């Protein structure tokens, strides 16, 4: 019995050892399409041996494994150790640790709104001077990334606190190329065509869309994405910004119209798998499954670039499922707006190594190292897009780099009580039959009470 226990322990030890060996630095310096010049340049400039950078963020599981690999090259370039730890409840953890004085050096915020909150309480350290100019010049749609990383500090002065690393594109519609091919459907180029296609599918006796709003305590957020997409496709970007800042009221006819545009898809029993009543009850993680059912439960699913993580395991993106850009109205002449989200790095406990790490984020290689592992898009215009793991990511990256307008997920920018509260619940009410105007008015009333 004892011998077996030791053998078991030995096996565990071996597995652990092997896993670590596998996970270590799969890209040889100087090889592949990665920008190793920027790596060598950085390595020459910085020597941080013996120092440590503590980083916490929202990436866990597989994503943590990829981050660890990407960050390990910072260690090999500079000698500084990087300790990244991910947390499922990052939003709460970072507030507790920053308030109690045990913050990590760098925090990776999934929502700029939370970073802005912490900046206004003096818990963040501004980035080095010139970072804003650098981002403006080197990121695609640079000014919007500068604005998203600039918050008021505790004295009310605007400073650049955050630099974006990893972006999700939301304006994607996922579909099954095989099913489209068999039924002879074409990829719609405009919103008008998309609506025609939707009607055509209904005429053929099929169900066009899978929509699911369920997400535990965050139920409703997928609908906020829909409304934001519709805002960008019916209103100019300035109106979108005014909406985010509540200069345009939530019950403005323009916003109500955008909510009703979403309703045109989600509240039509013929359009949605399971009927309109199923929308609010279906979990967003389960909702794409209809694309892969035989016979298909639906043909299209609008969701961000991260959704393949929830596809069945044997599904190959590009063969069994593909995506197209969620198109804009041809008649409105608003260009090709793209909605997205992203994670932003900010310094919570300053040190030389932390500043150097932010500088590292400016090198193309820091982005390419994760691009090459998949599941990562970047707005850094200096990267070699050949570094993307596959053509699908490259195509998503191109959507991002070719966007005429890029706007950040509005619900992440609004105050938490609205963007992560009233907006979510309001959308669930709307999806279950409430009147759009009343819902919008309810959200605006809530907003008025916190101002």
């Amino acid at each position, binding site marked *: 019995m004892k011998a077996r226990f030791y053998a078991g322990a030995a096996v565990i030890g071996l597995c652990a050892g092997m896993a670590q060996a596998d996970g270590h630095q799969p890209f040889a310096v100087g090889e592949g399409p990665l920008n190793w010049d920027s790596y060598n340049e950085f390595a020459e400039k910085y020597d941080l041996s013996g120092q440590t950078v503590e980083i916490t963020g929202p990436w866990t*599981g597989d994503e943590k494994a990829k981050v660890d690999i990407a960050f390990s090259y910072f260690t090999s370039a500079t000698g500084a150790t990087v300790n990244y730890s991910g947390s499922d409840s990052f939003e709460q953890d970072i507030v*507790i640790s920053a308030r109690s004085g045990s913050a990590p050096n760098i925090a990776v915020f999934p929502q700029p709104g939370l970073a802005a909150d912490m900046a206004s309480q003096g818990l963040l350290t501004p980035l080095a001077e010139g970072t804003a100019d650098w981002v403006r010049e080197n990121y695609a749609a640079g000014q919007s990334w500068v604005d998203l990383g600039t918050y008021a500090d505790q004295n009310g002065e605007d400073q650049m606190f955050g630099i974006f690393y990893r972006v999700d594109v939301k304006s994607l519609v996922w579909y099954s190329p095989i099913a489209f091919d068999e039924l002879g459907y074409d990829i719609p180029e405009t919103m008008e065509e998309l609506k025609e296609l939707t009607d055509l599918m209904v005429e053929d006796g099929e169900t066009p869309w899978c929509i699911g709003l369920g997400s535990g305590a965050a139920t409703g957020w997928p609908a906020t994405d829909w409304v934001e997409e519709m805002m960008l496709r019916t209103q100019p970007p300035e109106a979108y910004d005014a909406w985010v800042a509540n200069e345009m009221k939530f019950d403005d006819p323009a916003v109500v119209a955008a909510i009703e545009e979403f309703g045109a898809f989600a509240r039509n029993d013929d359009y949605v798998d399971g009927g309109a009543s199923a929308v609010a009850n279906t979990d967003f993680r389960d909702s794409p499954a209809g694309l892969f059912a035989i*016979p298909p439960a639906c043909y299209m699913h609008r969701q961000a670039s991260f959704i393949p993580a929830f596809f069945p395991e044997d599904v190959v993106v590009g063969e069994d499922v593909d995506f197209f850009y969620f198109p804009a109205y041809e008649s409105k002449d608003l260009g090709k707006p793209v909605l997205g989200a992203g994670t932003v790095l900010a310094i919570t406990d300053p040190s030389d190594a932390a500043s150097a790490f932010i500088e590292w984020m400016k090198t193309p290689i820091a982005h390419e190292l994760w691009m090459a592992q998949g599941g990562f898009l970047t707005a850094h215009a200096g990267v070699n897009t050949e570094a993307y793991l596959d053509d699908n990511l490259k195509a998503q990256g191109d959507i991002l780099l070719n966007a005429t307008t890029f706007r950040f997920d509005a619900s992440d920018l609004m105050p938490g009580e609205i963007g992560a509260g009233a907006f979510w619940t309001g959308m669930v009410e709307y999806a279950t039959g409430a009147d759009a105007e009343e819902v919008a008015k309810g959200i605006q009333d809530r907003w008025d009470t916190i101002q």
Partner: protein
Amino acid sequence: MDNIAGTKSSLSWAVNLSVIFLVVLWLVPTLGLLVSSFRDRDQISASGWWLSPFAVEQNFQASLPAGEARRDGDFFVIEGNLFSGGEGEILRFGGTRSNPTAFAPGETGDLRRDRSLTVEANGDFIYRTPSEISRDPNVYYATATPPDFSLDNYQTILFSNNMDVAFINTLTVTIPATIIPILIAAFAAYALAWMDFAGRGFLIAMVVGLLVVPLQLALVPLLQLHNKVGIGQSFLGIWMAHTGFGLPLAIYLLRNYMVGLPRDIIESAKVDGATDFQVFTKIVLPLSFPALASFAIFQFLWTWNDLLVAKVFLPSNSESWVMTVKIADDLLGSRGGDWGILASAAFISIAVPLIVFFTMQRYLVRGLLAGSVK
């Protein structure tokens, strides 16, 4: 007649039935969790756990190899078997995704553009088309899939990196965090129950008052204090935190129990010249064993299952993860979609508390009753 003590109520069958009903009702979710722990994520989202023991009729897609097409007169033909292993039975088949079960096996199904497809029940198929085949045509078929359970989830958890470290860490947190509060609380409870001093009633009221303070309120100030005195985020810190959070209940429970011990024994010991310390160690402590054990079970379960306090008071690197943090932050997938892992993690992590509970449960009921009823 029903109310006479010692006779059996004629309605006892109703009591039994409702007890059975309640127990089953209570066990169903656990059973579902147990079944789910043997299934992977795709199976869980495809069908309910109550259907898992049965063979399910499922539709599949297969691509016919265009490279094996041969010419037969005016037609191009592909022949072969849909089951790569040769086992299986086709229930229905079809040529389009939207109607995958259009034809019965043995029939020749007419597809679009003069193509035809025949599939036999054993999987043999013949596909004919008048035009050249440029890419693999898709066919669809229905077949019954046998129930499929695996130990993969358990394997993922037990053999994941650092799981052994996490297990040791959990024990490192749990054992001292159970023993320290019991030691302190036993002393305090004796003093509050049997020693006469000014303000005793007020102190007891304070302890009872502390029972209703949610511990979440204390997280930030306590961690600030730990940072100030130099403990920071460490095992020492989490022991102290758990001790503090557990003490009010421990003192309250133990005091109520000790107060109920017979006054005569304690007074006669004092008459014989025993000091308070001797009374405590020689008489009260041995007599309070059931209460001590029942509180130990409580505190052990609570610290074992704790996620929040561990996340706040322990460093966030993976070397100091306890099992709950390891499961929640590392194994559940980046967006918490791996239900199978969650289910099996639940069963693995309750193993130790179950052992503790069953070895000590006979004290639990006695201890609780003794504390509450004087």
